[in-house]
């Protein structure tokens, strides 16, 4: 993926988050839909902008930690009140 394609993807994911937030969804469903979009954006920034695509072993480590972190965020956001 080129840097410009990565930027277009980030813009598209950001607009996707805005659309989901503007759809009227709230509560845990909003969190379950919006946080994975943020996760995808973070992955693009790590691999393309920060260049981890050149270091696959390190990229896998970052991806694992990010996945655990996002799972924790989604779990807390969807936690019943």
């Amino acid at each position: 993926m080129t840097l410009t394609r990565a930027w277009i993807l980030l813009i598209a994911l950001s607009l996707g988050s805005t659309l989901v937030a503007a759809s009227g969804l709230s509560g845990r469903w909003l969190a379950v839909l919006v946080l994975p979009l943020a996760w995808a954006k973070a992955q693009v920034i790590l691999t393309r902008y920060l260049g981890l695509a050149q270091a696959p072993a390190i990229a896998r480590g970052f991806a694992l930690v990010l996945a655990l972190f996002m799972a924790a965020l989604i779990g807390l956001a969807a936690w019943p009140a």
Partner: protein
Amino acid sequence: MSAADQRALIDDLPGDLMMWVLIVSELLVFGAGMLAFLAVRITDPAGFAEAQSHLHRTAAGINTLVLVTSGWLAALAVRDAEAGALARLRWRLVLAAGLGAVFLWLKAGEYADLAREGLSFDSHPFFTFHLLLTGFHAAHVAAGMILLLIVALPATPRATEAGAAFWHMVDLVWVLLFPVVYLI
């Protein structure tokens, strides 16, 4: 893993090792803050939702586009540094820093409106977290802008890559912070 393997792994890391130590440290601090924010929210979801309604969601959404575009310019500047296109590199870094100023201007508008409404750190736990997390992030945006302008002077590949890496960390934190604090 042998010492040679570890060395090879570190050598694979793009850019400066110390910048990565800084990036990982910052990500851990912001990550802990976001987890604490959502954990405390469980105790008062209605209060957090009411407090969130005072924020500038649209401006924060625009700020996401602003930072993502700024990060793209910084990434292109690294490529310019490798190609020796110094004039183009400097313009891109100045534009990236300029977008950082746009980000801070929009954020300042939100802080000013909260202050006018009498909302501050101690109004509600939501605002304690909001002001700490976004304020700390805004301080990093300001530091990143200065760093981008400083590395634009020597414009060496190493300096540009280090400045851009810090800027991408700022970008990365925001794309995670924005939905947690402003949307969900």
